C-alpha cells in the first residue's frame, strides 16, 4: 500500500511548458481509502525530439477499471504503453519522472522490461493470436515461457483463463484448432485469455473493441466488468459511452497532458475543466 502523503513528485527534468491547469485532486479521491496500483508523478516521455507526454501525475487504483479518454494523438496510447515499458520497442524513446507499481519503481536500472510485462499484461487494438498455434497453445504460451510444464496445472489454467475471458463454452470442443480460425470477437477474447493466463497484476487494454461489432463489444465489456473484482484494468478507449459503462475512474488526456482525472460519473456529469466538458459533450475530438 503506497502512502499518498509521501508521494512527492520527482521531476528529473523541469518542464517549462507545463499546462496552466494542473490536474485537480478532488476530495472524493483523497478521502476514500484505496489501494494504489500505479503511483505516477512528473512523468514525461519523448520520441526522439518530440515530447509526447508532459509531466503526468496520476494514482491508478487497484482492483478497479480506469478508462483513459482523449482525442487521437493526445498521448493516451503512449501513456498506456509506458505502463509496461512497451514503448521501449520504439527506438529513440526516453522518459523522465517516477512510475511505481505497488511501490516498486518499474524503471529502476535493475528491473528487466520482460519482468515488468509479466506483471503488467496487455491486450491490443487488433486481436493478434499466434496463427501457427492452436487455441490451447495460444492461451498457455505465456505460462510455458515461464517454465510451467506441470500438465495438471496447465490444463487447469487453460480452463480458468478461457472461462474468465468468457470463451470456454464456445471453444472447449475445438481447443486444437488454430487460434486464427475464430471470429474477430472470439480472437480478441482469446488474446485476453492469453494475457490472463500468466496471472498479471494489471491488464492494459488499448482500444480492445475498436475493431469489433456491437455484440462482440458487449461481451468484452461484460468481461471487463467481471475482471474488476480480481484485476487492475486500464483501458484506452475512443468510445465515451464505453468509458462511462465500464470504468470506475476516467482520465482525460489532451495534447500529451493529463487534463482531468476523477470518478467516471464526475467526469461525465460534472467535469471541472471546460476542455473535459467540451470533449465528453462531443464538441471536439
Amino acid at each position: 500500500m503506497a502512502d499518498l502523503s509521501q508521494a512527492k513528485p520527482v521531476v528529473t527534468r523541469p518542464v517549462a511548458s507545463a499546462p496552466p491547469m494542473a490536474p485537480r485532486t478532488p476530495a472524493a479521491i483523497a478521502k476514500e481509502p484505496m489501494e494504489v496500483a500505479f503511483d505516477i508523478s512528473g512523468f514525461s516521455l519523448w520520441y526522439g525530439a518530440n515530447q509526447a507526454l508532459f509531466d503526468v501525475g496520476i494514482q491508478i487504483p487497484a482492483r478497479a477499471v480506469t478508462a483513459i479518454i482523449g482525442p487521437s494523438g493526445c498521448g493516451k496510447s503512449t501513456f498506456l504503453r509506458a505502463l509496461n515499458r512497451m514503448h521501449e520497442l520504439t527506438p529513440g524513446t526516453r522518459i523522465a519522472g517516477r512510475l511505481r507499481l505497488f511501490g516498486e519503481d518499474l524503471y529502476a536500472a535493475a528491473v528487466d522490461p520482460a519482468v515488468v510485462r509479466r506483471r503488467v499484461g496487455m491486450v491490443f487494438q487488433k486481436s493478434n493470436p499466434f496463427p501457427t498455434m492452436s487455441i490451447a497453445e495460444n492461451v498457455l504460451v505465456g505460462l510455458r515461457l515461464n517454465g510451467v510444464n506441470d500438465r495438471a496445472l496447465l490444463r487447469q489454467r487453460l480452463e480458468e483463463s478461457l472461462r474468465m475471458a468468457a470463451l470456454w463454452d464456445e471453444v472447449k470442443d475445438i481447443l486444437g484448432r488454430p487460434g486464427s480460425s475464430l471470429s474477430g470477437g472470439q480472437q480478441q477474447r482469446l488474446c485476453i485469455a492469453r494475457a490472463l493466463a500468466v496471472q498479471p497484476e494489471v491488464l492494459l487494454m488499448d482500444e480492445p473493441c475498436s475493431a469489433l461489432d456491437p455484440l462482440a463489444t458487449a461481451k468484452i465489456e461484460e468481461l471487463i466488468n467481471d475482471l474488476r473484482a480480481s484485476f487492475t484494468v486500464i483501458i484506452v478507449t475512443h468510445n465515451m459511452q464505453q468509458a462511462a459503462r465500464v470504468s470506475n475512474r476516467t482520465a482525460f488526456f489532451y495534447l500529451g497532458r493529463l487534463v482531468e482525472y476523477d470518478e467516471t460519473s464526475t467526469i461525465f456529469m460534472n467535469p471541472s475543466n471546460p476542455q473535459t466538458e467540451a470533449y465528453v459533450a462531443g464538441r471536439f475530438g
Partner: protein
Amino acid sequence: MAAPSVSTSPHSAIRSTLPAGVRWPDISFRWLALLAAVTILVLIALVGWELYQGSRLAIGHFGPRFLVNSTWNPVTDEYGAWPFIFGTLVSSLIALVIAVPLGVATALYLTELAPVRLRQPVVMIVEMLAAVPSVIFGLWGIFVLIPWLRDHLFVWLKETLGFLPLFRGTIYGVSMLAAGIIVAIMILPIITSVSREILRSVPNLQREAAYALGATHWEVMRIAVLSYARRGLFGAAVLGLGRALGETMAVTMVIGNRPDISASLFAPGYTLASVIANEFTEATTDLYLSSLFELGLVLVAVTIVVNVVAQLMLRSLAGSGTGKVR
C-alpha cells in the same frame, strides 16, 4: 490540368464512351502480356522436346535401367545416371544443411537484432556475394578452400566424428563435402535475402503480442517471428535448393569428377550438371552424346520432383496442433 470545357453542362467533363484512341493501349498491352507469358511456356516446351529428341537413342537403348545403373564407361559404351543423381542430391543437401541455418540466422540478425546503421551495409555485402561469378568461387575453392579443408577441417572431422561412415576414408581434398561447402556459399545470398524479406513481413503486432507476455528477445523470435514465418523460410530453402541442384562450374572444379558412390563425404563425386559440362565436347559416339542428353533430361526431372515434393511438404506444414495439453 483540365482544359476549360466548351460545353456548359456539368457532366460534359466525363466521357460517356471511350474513343478508340484511348482504348488501344489497353488492348495492345493485354496481347503483349499474353505473348510474353506464352513465350515462356513455348521455350520450356521446346527445351523439353529438344532434350527428349537428343536422348531418344539412349532411352531406347538402356530403358529405365539408365536411372539405376552405376556404370559410366565410354570405353565399353555403357552409361548409367545413378552416380550423378546421387552426387547432385548429396552435394545439394550438404549445401542446404550449411546454408539454411546460416542464412536464416543472418536474416534474423539483420531484421531483429542489428543496429539500424549496420543493416544496409551488411545487406549489400551479402548481395555482393551473389554477384561473384561461379568460376571465381571455383578457383578460390581449388587454391584456398580445398588445401585448408584437406589439412585442417577434414583431419579434425575424421578424428572427432570418424566413427560415422560419413567421415571415414582417404582425404583427397576434392570431395563431395568441398562441393557442398562451395555451393552453400553460393546459395547463401538468395536464402539470406529471401528470408530477410519474409521476416520483415511478420507483422509487428505479432512481436508485440509476445513481448507483452514478458518474452525475451530470443523467445519473441521463437514464438512470434520464426513460427509465423516458417512457411516462407521453407520457401527460401527450396529456392536455394533449386539453385544448388543446377550449380555447375564451381562444383565441377572442386567435386573431383569421379562417378563413384561412396558413403564418405571425403570421397570425390560427380553431378549431373558437371558431367554434361565436362564431357559434352568429348562425346565421341552417338550413344555417348545421347546419354549426356538424357542426363540433362534427368536433371530437369530431378529439379521438378524436388520442387513438387517441397510444395507438398509446405502444404502439410500448415496443419494444426492437437489441442491436447502436453
